[in-house]
């Protein structure tokens, strides 16, 4: 199948190195301490953060840092085929684990000992790159909850189809069973915290694709930073003196 036309356009009309439209909104869940909706094109996820709060299961309490928990779910209506998916299948357990460990790397857990932070992410519409969108939404929600972090984490994916590196794969491109590289970076430190990859790719091409995904992460980081700054200013202005 042709994923890149001779004119250099992808199926949805993007250029190979073009990202989908980003949209973020803070405060989507009023009960939560922090929440956000994040959209990458047609992929839409919602994240809510509760905490830091008292540890619910005493035996899990950690004496020198906060306990981070994460639950990732995919809404039944998020994909084309509306199947009832069993809760806690292997894929979502793994993604929950990956999101938790990624967020743990940037949350300053030692500042909130003996407490617990819960991150809930739910995919409302899946159109490729859900993992990245979830991480971006979680970052926004954590920042909204005022939880101290040493850096933001932003994520973006890239693939390699028709001998062309493609940024931010959508569902059709994703299901082509080609290589799919998901990268999560700490933009300020310029370090990679999350890196997942499937299928086969020679090493030098992999480096290019990873580089492309990293650029995508940086673009996401700029957008997220703008959103947060705008939000902070708004809150401060409204509050008044």
């Amino acid at each position, binding site marked *: 199948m042709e994923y890149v036309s001779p004119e250099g356009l992808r199926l949805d009309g993007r250029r190979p190195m073009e990202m989908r439209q980003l949209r973020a909104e803070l405060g989507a869940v009023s009960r939560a301490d922090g929440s956000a909706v994040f959209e990458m094109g047609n992929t839409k996820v919602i994240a809510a953060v509760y905490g830091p709060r008292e540890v619910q299961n005493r035996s899990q309490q950690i004496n020198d840092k906060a306990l981070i928990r994460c639950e990732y779910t995919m809404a039944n209506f998020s994909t084309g085929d509306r199947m009832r998916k069993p809760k806690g299948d292997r894929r979502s357990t793994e993604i929950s684990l990956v999101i*938790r460990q990624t967020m743990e790397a940037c949350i300053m857990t030692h500042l909130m000992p003996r407490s617990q932070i819960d991150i809930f992410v739910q995919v409302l519409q899946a159109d490729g790159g859900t993992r990245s969108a979830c991480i971006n939404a979680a970052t926004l929600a954590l920042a909204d909850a005022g939880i101290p972090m040493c850096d933001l984490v932003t994520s973006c994916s890239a693939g390699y189809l028709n001998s062309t590196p493609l940024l931010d794969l959508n569902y059709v491109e994703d299901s082509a069973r080609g290589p799919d590289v998901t990268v999560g970076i700490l933009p300020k430190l310029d370090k990679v915290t999350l890196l997942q990859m499937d299928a086969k790719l020679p090493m030098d091409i992999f480096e290019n694709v990873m580089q492309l995904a990293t650029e995508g992460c940086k673009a996401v980081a700029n957008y997220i930073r703008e959103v947060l700054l705008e939000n902070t200013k708004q809150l401060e202005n409204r509050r008044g003196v």
Partner: protein
Amino acid sequence: MEQRLANSLIMTVNEKKFIENALVSDIRVDGRRPFDYRNLTIRFGSEDGSSEVQLGKTQVLAFVTGQLVQPYRDRPNEGTFAIYTEFSPMADPSFEPGRPGDSAIELGRIVDRGLRESRAVDTESLCVIAGKLVWSIRIDLHIIDNGGNLVDAANIAALAALSTFRRPECTIGGEDGQELTVHPPDVREPLPLIMHHFPVAVTFGFIGKENIVVIDPTHYEEEVMGGSLTATLNTNGDVCAIQKAGGDGVLQSVIMQCLRIASVKAGDITSKIKSAVESYNTQRALRKIKRHNPSSAVSNAAKHNEESTQVNTETKSIQQSSDTNTSASTHDVTNIGSPEQQSKTLKDAVKPKHKKRKKSTSNANAS
């Protein structure tokens, strides 16, 4: 509370600091350098498709079995391939009995992704009748002892087991071309799987503030490290899968350096697996010659003949069995033990036990 304290590994402050400090002077607690792999031993069981891998103190058992099933609707002419992991508290008290924990699932997913997504096993050759019957390959990974770096050990065990696994040969016959014969191993030599390449997982740990890279971390080092990266590569230098699930951030240049080191290690490990498999195959060939030794066969000859005739009549049409779950427990098939056992396995190969009697009566009725 106390229970949890007793089950979790508590490292002393001294140990944590020492591991970091020693790494600054390029040495690890077990005397290795940062980029030394532990001793790797690969052993095989008496049956095809089983292997035992020992990596330092880590021990993993892999068992491959095959079964005839209906294929997935979206891939009608491909065999299926699944990985199951078993983390028993025997290997490490921190593993909880019952439901597989996060680490068990992550391990399964990493091995699965490395083998399946890179198409290491030729699944198309596992198709028997398109859309109706394919071989389903199942790998069971049992952790026997956790000495750290389970992923690499499990991956090697899976590769070794896959490369010695053999499935019974099947032929399709009958007027409508829908009749299936599963040939017992002593009638036709069972077939090995077609492996396109060997994706080998190599794990790195990042320890301390400077994120010093170590290869093949022990479970002490795993306790201390801030993050890890598992790269699955083959000998052609292709990257088949990478997993770095959060944790401390590292520079891109470090990741590329890891990949280059991993590629070298993957070459070493692949040749180790291949030589182990080769010696196993020669041994197997020797055993087979012994097996055909007439003296042992004489006593069973009469019964044996009966068996083989029975087998030939045991052909059955697929339509008849489409509702039943056709199964073939191949590890039994390959085991040439007593004739009683064989007769059982042959019947097993075409239908489940509880349907056995019913089926034979219905067959009789039909004829």
